[in-house]
């Protein structure tokens, strides 16, 4: 499908889909997010074949529903459709539903932002003070990841921590930092 559609933005492809009689533009748009959709299906369904079937079924669902709703942003919308489809499948099979990634990321969104941007002077001072209070492994992982720009794999290779532990140290470190900053903030208030 090389008719310039690859160059179009999501919004342009959505608009074109509304005008044409085939799902060509929708196919290009869906294909753009195919690796992510398949990955999400893998995460929820835990089986490659089930995930592949789900990807095709979700495409049919998207093709059927997209004309009925005014979709402003395709990316978050298709994520929601994908997640809901997988959850529905899990409920049907009465299987355990994994934690919601959005909620988990939402817990530490502020800290991630502060660490990413290092914030203003006051916030930075607060962060540095709290970093001193973190357990060594958590502090080392946060410094390497956010301030030294190392990947999980780099950190695991350097520290010889298992990869899963690196992720865990980072997650726990962020949560502790958040608690610490909030506590200090209340104290200073």
């Amino acid at each position, binding site marked *: 499908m090389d008719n310039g559609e690859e160059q179009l933005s999501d919004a342009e492809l959505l608009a074109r889909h509304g005008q044409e009689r085939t*799902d060509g533009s929708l196919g290009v748009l869906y294909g753009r997010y195919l*690796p992510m959709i398949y*990955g999400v*299906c*893998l995460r929820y369904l835990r089986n490659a074949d089930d*995930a592949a079937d789900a990807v095709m079924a979700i495409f*049919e669902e998207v093709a059927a529903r997209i004309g*009925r709703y005014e979709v402003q942003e395709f990316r978050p919308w298709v994520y929601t459709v994908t997640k809901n489809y997988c959850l529905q499948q899990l409920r049907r099979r009465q299987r355990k539903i994994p934690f919601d990634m959005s909620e988990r*990321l939402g817990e530490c969104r502020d800290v991630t932002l502060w660490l990413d941007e290092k914030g203003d002077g006051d916030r930075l001072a607060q962060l540095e003070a709290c970093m001193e209070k973190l357990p060594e492994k958590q502090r080392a992982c946060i410094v390497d990841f956010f301030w030294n720009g*190392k990947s999980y794999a780099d950190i695991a290779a350097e520290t010889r921590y298992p990869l899963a532990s690196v992720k865990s140290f980072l997650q726990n470190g962020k949560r502790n930092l958040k608690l610490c900053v909030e506590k200090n903030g209340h104290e200073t208030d």
Partner: protein
Amino acid sequence: MKLIDYIFGSRRGREANRLERETMRDPFLADAIEGYDAVYGNHSDKLAELSQRIDARAARQHKESGSRNRLWFGLGGVAAVLLVGVAGTVWWMERSSGRRTAEPIGEPLAMAEELPAEEVSAVALRKGAAPAEEEPAPRLARMEPEEAAAESSLRSESAAAETAAAVETETQSVPAAEAEEASEPEPIESELLEAAAEADAVAPDPAAETAVATRTVSMQAREIEMEEAAVAGGLRMVHNPEFDAFFATNHKERLSSGEPVEIVVEFRVNDHGVPSAIRILSWYSQETSSEVIMLLVTGPRWEPTGDERIRTVVRYE
């Protein structure tokens, strides 16, 4: 860095770090990466296969979404097509019968090679036939009221066969190789003559007999013209022994008459060797036509002809 690169192993360095930081803000990306990390397998092949399937699916028409509006639009479209089809058929029937009535009576009679001389002359005498140079006049206009009634009765009795025959003989032509055999009456004509005979049996009206004879003669004249056109068009007559054998063993329709019937078919052969755009030139019945088309499409391959149309004769024996 692209997600695909990361998934398939490029997980070191600042680019990987950038993507990992993104996952901390983007649950969609985080879910996806966790999915790949959680399930072992050849995901790259799976993704390639899925991509192909999505492309193939996306190329199809919009799927029915289950929306009632779309369903009604579809039904409306079908109804409109049917209406147009019916109107077209009626128009075509009217047109073909109109053409027939507009023909001069003298000219077809002159071409009546098939009819016995006594019958032709009887017709001419009954009608007080005008010479060939007489100015053409609509046939119905020249009929007496009882003659027109007989004509109308006859037409209603043999409407289906007549319509098909008229369509076929007016729009199609007979192959050059068949031209020599044209002296033998086609099944359709025999049907017409039978129908005419029946009509006569019911209402033995000399006027109706005249009308039937005139029309039969005029159809024969038209067929002769069409045959000449076919010769001029130079359509190839193709014989495929494999198909003949296949047809002989697979056709299920049995003809009520028990007489062998030849059906002339015109078509193109696509690049896969399958006949397409098939037209039945000598119509016998709806069932035989459908069967011939079905067996042509499902039977042995033919030599591709590109855009050229060819003809063949299918024999019911």
